[in-house]
């Protein structure tokens, strides 16, 4: 099977870097696109070629279908990989790519469209025998709300019919909050997806978010790679994911993966996709949505199943038949991922972009970092504030958990506030350690986190000593300079005893 000679990566940040690496490993040249804010972003530097597609705002660059396809044409790319976010779940884009004679690395446009409309998707999977949450679909205006709410019962969840990723979502616990939440959700949905339609459903108390990775070829073969649990969320966005889920019995896993495969088959799904479910406290599960693209958290599936999902995407997109039967897929051990955001968890997770003054990434056995930054890089204010992802593998959940804690303690990012200290506190929480996780975990256990400051005195001592030190330069750069007069190295000795 001949793969592509050159592929355009229609994305930025860590996922673009990861996709470019995946191409290079298969002997494929990778073309980056970039906005004017990203001319020297890490993904541009590792690509074989790069094309500017417009000004910084994503609506004018990374969401510009025409310029993206033009870039592929100019650079003679034969296929386009959309990554996640941006144009990844845009059926019109997938169609435009095909119409331009290029290969879209993802499912057919019809499958994207079918699953992209949450209302239509729900109907489809119900027909395929997949359970769904009680809900009322397509609430067009606020006047219908009180009746809808009464039908379903509080608490309610309002979400965008067109979207994903937490944008346009609101939880409503009482009628008083209904109207303002609806207005805000509609505004966000309109601005994020150009479609203000909303969807109201019963809100499950303390459910787990469980999703199943599927992979199909263009010849009707489809396998799954087990589940991921992504219950740890803030602002309705995942921040810690793992596989296997501590909550799944073999019997439940069997049922949920079968439901996922049924949902995918209902739209003749090909390429990589994810079927998301909520699992309630009584072990009942409900279809949430299907993400018709590679997922941020795909590394945990790769670790445990010994699969490279990006290679797989490229191969099935090129027409290759699946080389794996379901029985060949044997998960091993446990994997956890943490997303590193430039945000301040002590300030309602406000984004905190800035210039990376100093960076030291963790490494060693069982630790993978997918990074979209480098030392000296200024995180642009125009895009999602995720800087990198750390994923680990361990023989058991306990081993993976300990390894993640060790890795995050090694990780140094100075220049912007990151979620690392918060993630460490979440990991340290006894409820996380024992696998007692659910989507309200953060609200419940960290309603007003103020910071992890176990070493405040040591840090103050370091800052004070450094303040008394004669400065070499006024610049804020990280400099690996030769020994200074203050470096009293050589024969020194510490430790208990003499």
């Amino acid at each position, binding site marked *: 099977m001949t793969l592509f000679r050159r592929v355009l990566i229609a994305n930025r940040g860590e996922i673009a870097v990861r996709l470019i690496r995946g191409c290079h490993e298969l002997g494929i040249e990778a073309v980056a696109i970039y906005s004017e804010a990203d001319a020297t972003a890490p993904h541009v530097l590792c690509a074989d070629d790069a094309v500017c597609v417009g000004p910084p705002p994503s609506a004018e660059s990374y969401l510009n279908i025409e310029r993206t396809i033009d870039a592929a044409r100019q650079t003679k790319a034969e296929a386009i990989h959309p990554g996640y976010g941006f144009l990844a779940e845009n059926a019109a884009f997938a169609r435009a790519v095909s119409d331009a004679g290029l290969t879209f690395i993802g499912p057919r446009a019809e499958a994207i469209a079918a699953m992209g409309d949450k209302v239509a998707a729900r109907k489809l999977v119900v027909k395929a025998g997949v359970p769904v949450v009680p809900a009322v679909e397509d609430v067009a205006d606020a006047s219908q709300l009180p009746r809808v709410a009464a039908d379903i019962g509080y608490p309610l969840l309002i979400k965008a019919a067109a979207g994903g990723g937490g944008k346009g979502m609101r939880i409503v616990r009482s009628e008083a909050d209904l109207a303002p939440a609806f207005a805000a959700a509609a505004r966000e949905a309109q601005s994020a997806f150009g479609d203000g339609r909303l969807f109201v459903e019963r809100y499950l108390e303390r459910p787990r978010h469980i999703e199943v990775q599927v992979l199909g070829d263009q010849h009707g073969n489809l396998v799954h790679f087990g589940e991921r649990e992504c219950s740890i969320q803030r602002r309705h966005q995942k921040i810690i994911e793992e596989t296997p889920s501590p909550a799944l019995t073999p019997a439940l896993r069997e049922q949920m993966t079968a439901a996922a495969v049924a949902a995918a088959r209902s739209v003749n799904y090909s390429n990589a996709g994810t079927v998301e479910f909520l699992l309630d406290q009584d072990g009942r599960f409900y279809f949430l949505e299907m993400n018709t693209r590679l997922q941020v958290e795909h590394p945990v599936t790769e670790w445990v199943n010994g699969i490279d999902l990006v290679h797989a995407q490229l191969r099935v997109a090129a027409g290759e038949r699946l080389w794996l039967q379901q029985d060949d897929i044997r998960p091993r051990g446990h994997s956890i991922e943490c997303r590193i955001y430039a945000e301040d968890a002590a300030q309602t997770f406000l984004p905190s972009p800035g210039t990376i003054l100093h960076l030291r990434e963790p490494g060693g056995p069982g630790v993978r970092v997918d990074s979209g930054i480098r030392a000296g890089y200024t995180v642009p204010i125009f895009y999602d504030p995720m800087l990198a992802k750390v994923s680990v593998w361990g023989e058991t959940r306990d081993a993976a958990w300990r390894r993640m804690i060790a890795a995050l303690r090694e990780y140094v990012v100075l220049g912007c506030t990151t979620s690392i200290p918060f993630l460490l506190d979440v990991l340290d929480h006894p409820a996380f350690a024992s696998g007692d996780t659910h989507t309200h975990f953060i609200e419940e256990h960290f309603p007003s986190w103020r910071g992890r400051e176990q*070493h*405040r005195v040591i840090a103050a001592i370091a800052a004070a000593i450094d303040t008394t030190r004669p400065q070499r330069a006024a610049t804020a750069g990280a400099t690996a300079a030769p020994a200074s007069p203050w470096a009293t190295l050589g024969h*020194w000795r510490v430790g208990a005893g003499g």
Partner: protein
Amino acid sequence: MRISLRHKQHHIAVDVHPEGGSYRIGIGETEHVVEAHYIDETTMMLVVDGRRHHVAIARKGKERLVAIDGEIYQFAPESGSAGHVATFAPPEIIAPMPGKVLQVLVKAGDHVAAGDGLLILEAMKMENRLVAEAAGTVTEVRVTEGAMVDGGQVLVVMKYDE
């Protein structure tokens, strides 16, 4: 030499006394014996009362950013005698980044509790709710809905309850 630092709401006065190759460091009532070794410009090895700490440090003007064991600190120098460690919330609510004011939730004169929303700022594709760090009275609202603001711009001024 006394170095007065602020990290978030914490005021910390550190008395630094170089002594031979090491330091006596006073913080509050406690005195520490400290050895400081610069591994390079951004890495320090501190030995504080016999325990080793591997510290990363970066400089942003007069500020010192410190990372230790996964934790992050940002110290700004303070002038004057800040010998006490007290809770302190800055009275000016500042835009953490450039964005658009979607909604202003308070007006001058309003009394708010800690955690109450002050305004909603759209930035990085998200609606961000800026909240009061402590209970107090809104003395001034400097922006209107729809305004584009710069990072660092003062949005609201508070007078916290005593």
